[in-house]
């Protein structure tokens, strides 16, 4: 025994615990770094031990999953009507965001959106009729995620709705997402009034065919490339999509002009895209979906392939646990509220949009987006620190999505559920906030840390597979 790794070397300390010990060492000019330690998740010790014992196997599986995620080539290849393309779509099926849910448990905004969709489909004339129908069992409900689809907020998709069609050209799989309606009273926030339904109808009758022709004319649009550029332009493509929308507009506008012969429609469509900073969100989300779906069913992988909320529950799926959902209660975000609203009005977290965080964007890339730092405490430094913290629970770093401020370091990518539970640190999510009652719409925007419970369940689920 000689302790050669220590004696005679410059002491460099990692301090885990009392801050004063760090302060004392700093005063003496010694090298010391503090850990902002938090207790690990409240999880069965055996689970941690099993995961620890199988670390090498899990990491090998994760390498494979990460490679697939990084190699993904998401393209916009067309538009279509949901019933034509979404697997399993039918006239009486409503897709929704988050993990599975039954009608009796749906939150206000989800309820509003489902009622709106039933009215939009012409199955009911008003709220009461639609509510009766929804409760009667005539409609089935199913998570978007189980149909190669994602939807923001309530995420409700019905058979007649137009959708973007994305293809992962590397692995051949597809993903679908509706078109973004804009802000204010919109279906995804639970609005179902005439204005909302009429807008949806217009989107189906004018926006959809116009965009479809334009995309067909172009052939395909490289969305990974657009997102990579958008990150350099101040987006994190979840709460801020201004750059992404602008880049998409540049890509699509000439084709619209060339393929649409009605000048008033061209003007209306271009103005609609131009007037909605979140138009690109409904493309950044399916990019996450089509990229992550390719990494499903990789045995023993602890990487999260879906992380989503339905306004009541928060659910997870792992690459290594097939189709199992791991579910806990959804939390209410810390938010900046629109005038006249408070946290009292807010619905618990809702939407598939956390697919962006799952693929290394959104809250994970917030250091790229100084324009929205008021959501995270006010300073650009806060935003940077949030992204840096996410590297602690990510299995890898992105090859395309980069943070300029961090010397173009790749964004933290591939949430590793074992790291989440060991470090007691959950993913950080940007989000919009819906009113808890149906029909009112968005009341704010903000951030939240995901609840720990689903991650504990997911880690346990993965560990149980090793037991067998």
């Amino acid at each position, binding site marked *: 025994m000689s*302790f050669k*790794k220590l*004696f*005679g070397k410059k002491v460099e*300390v*990692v301090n*885990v615990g*009392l801050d004063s*010990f760090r302060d004392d060492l700093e005063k003496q000019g010694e090298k010391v770094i503090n850990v902002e330690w938090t207790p690990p998740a409240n999880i069965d010790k055996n689970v941690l031990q099993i995961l620890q014992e199988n670390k090498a196997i899990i990491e090998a599986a994760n390498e494979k999953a990460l490679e697939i995620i990084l190699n993904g080539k998401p393209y916009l290849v067309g538009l279509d009507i949901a019933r034509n393309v979404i697997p399993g779509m039918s006239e009486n099926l409503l897709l929704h965001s988050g993990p599975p849910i039954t009608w009796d448990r749906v939150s206000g905004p989800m309820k509003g959106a489902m009622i709106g969709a039933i009215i939009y489909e012409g199955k009911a004339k008003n709220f009461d009729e639609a509510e009766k129908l929804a409760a009667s069992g005539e409609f089935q409900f199913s998570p978007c995620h189980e149909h190669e689809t994602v939807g923001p907020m309530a995420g409700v998709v019905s058979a007649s709705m137009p959708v973007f069609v994305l293809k992962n050209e590397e692995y051949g799989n597809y993903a679908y997402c509706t078109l973004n309606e804009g802000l204010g009273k919109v279906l995804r926030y639970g609005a179902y009034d005439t204005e909302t339904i009429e807008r949806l109808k217009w989107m189906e009758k004018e926006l959809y065919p116009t965009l479809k022709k334009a995309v067909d004319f172009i052939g395909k649009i490289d969305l990974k490339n657009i997102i990579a550029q958008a990150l350099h332009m101040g987006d994190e493509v979840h709460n801020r999509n201004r750059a992404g929308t602008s880049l998409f507009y540049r890509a699509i506008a000439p084709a619209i002009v060339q393929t649409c012969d009605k000048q008033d429609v061209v003007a209306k469509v271009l103005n609609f895209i131009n007037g909605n900073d979140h138009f690109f969100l409904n493309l950044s989300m399916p990019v996450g979906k089509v990229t992550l779906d390719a990494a499903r069913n990789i045995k023993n992988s602890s990487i999260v392939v879906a992380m989503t909320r339905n306004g009541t529950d928060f659910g997870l799926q792992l690459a290594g646990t097939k189709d199992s959902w791991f579910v806990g209660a959804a939390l209410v975000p810390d938010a900046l509220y629109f005038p006249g609203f408070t946290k009292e009005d807010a619905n618990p977290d809702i939407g598939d949009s956390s697919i962006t965080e799952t693929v290394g964007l959104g809250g994970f890339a917030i250091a790229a987006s100084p324009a929205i730092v008021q959501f995270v405490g006010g300073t650009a430094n806060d935003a940077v620190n949030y992204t840096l913290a996410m590297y602690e629970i990510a299995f890898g770093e992105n090859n395309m999505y980069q943070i300029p401020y961090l010397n173009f370091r790749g964004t933290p990518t591939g949430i590793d559920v074992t790291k989440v539970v060991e470090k007691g640190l959950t993913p950080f999510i940007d989000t919009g906030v819906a009113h808890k009652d149906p029909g009112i719409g968005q009341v704010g925007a903000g951030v939240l840390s995901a609840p720990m419970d689903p991650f504990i369940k997911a880690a346990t689920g993965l560990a149980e597979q090793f037991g067998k």
Partner: protein
Amino acid sequence: MIKSIVKKGEYFDSVSLMIVGKDITLMDNVIDATVVMATQENKSILKTAGLYLDEFEKYDDTDLLIVIKSDFEDKFEEIFENVNNLLIEIRNKKDDQGSFTPKSLEGAIKIQPDSNLALISIAGRFAGDEAMKALKKGLNVMLFSDNVSLETEIELKQYALANDLLMMGPDCGTAIINGVPLAFSNAVNRGDIGIIAASGTGLQEVSSIISEEGFGISQAIGTGGRDIKEAVGGLMFISSLEALKDDDETKVIVLVSKPPHPTVLNKINAKLNEISKPVVSIFLGADADMVEESGAIAAKTLEEAALLACAISDNLDTSKVAEFLEERRLSYGAIAEKEVKKISSGRKYIRGLFSGGTLCDEAQIILKKDINNIFSNRSGDEKFALADSWTSKEHTLVDLGEDEFTVGRLHPMMDFDLRNKRIIQEAKDKETAIILFDLVLGYGAHADPINEILPIIKEAQEIASNISFICSVTGTEQDPQNRSKIIKVLEENGVIVMPSNAAAAEIVNLITKEIK
């Protein structure tokens, strides 16, 4: 009435919460208050403190409980708001570094890749896992936390030794590695004296005296108190001996601990036989001949061990050390006589109030040479165990750093409140003749001990002008508090400050003999 608010998932470390808790109890209209994480331990503390509410049942380790007792129903809202502000303040203070603070050991090592030592002081039930993580990352560990199981300690130490890593602790408060004082340690000279200690304050006393004598420390390794028990078998103590044997910078080795278990002592002796370097040992409370056969030079006090090491370092005759100490002891007669005159009749008992456990032990051992009945919360003899540590009985020496005093509060080296109250309590006792206390300086300890203790000494002197205050100051000139400055102020205020803990006990012996 008692009211509470709960913050789910908001973690604060216990020290931050103690600071907040202390501030709350000072607020207007607050009778009692506490802010704790909802762990099982804390919940049972709340029960005993009468601050428990049934609803706390459903909360656990990661939830924060804020409990306030007040007679003013309409004030609660204001009080809770103030508490909230305190918490925000303390959170911001943590964050104001500006730069990113990693959330895990793994994250820290990524940022500081040449890290080679983890200093761990989180709650005991998590500390073992964290220490193992550090070892597996190739870091040496100083584990300050206590309440780590014996099995975990053995597992950690075996893993460390298999990988040539130093694993200090659990419950290791003091170490000086490559000249860097860690946790509760003093700023000492560097030199050729290596120390291995299973006692934190023992190590502080020995290393400080060596440094004050103008000599220096090569390495001072803390092993944690349990290392020399049979179960751990001296794993780290013996490995450290081997390391210092081979360390070119170490000329003489000092061993500091309570008497090791006989099986461990055998192993130590066997290892000592392989070492040609001179070794001085102070096994407090052991028979003098216990170690002699191995060739180590046995000291009777921490101070003697330090002086012996200095003499060897200086190539001087070690027999002169005992002579010097005896001569010095005899010279204390005059001071003792003066103090005896000051103490009024009827006052006859010693009240020793210690912040250092080993210093309390050493004082007891010395006093027992002449006094039989000394009660203590650290007595090896059940007959003299204090029935109630909060109340003295006849001659009493208490270690205020024992668990019974530190649950829910900081160690007395950092927080003087408890000992200050005890000083006043003893001053009011008509039988108290001598108040003996230690002051431990250095990193980790209170930055301004004079400001804490001097007003209390003055208050006590006003209550009873006929008590003798005897003290020793463990620390160095280079310590942030500056030893000589502290001594000067104490002396100016009528406190007899002795050069060492042992010397303080010696003079108490002399005084006590005379007042009998």
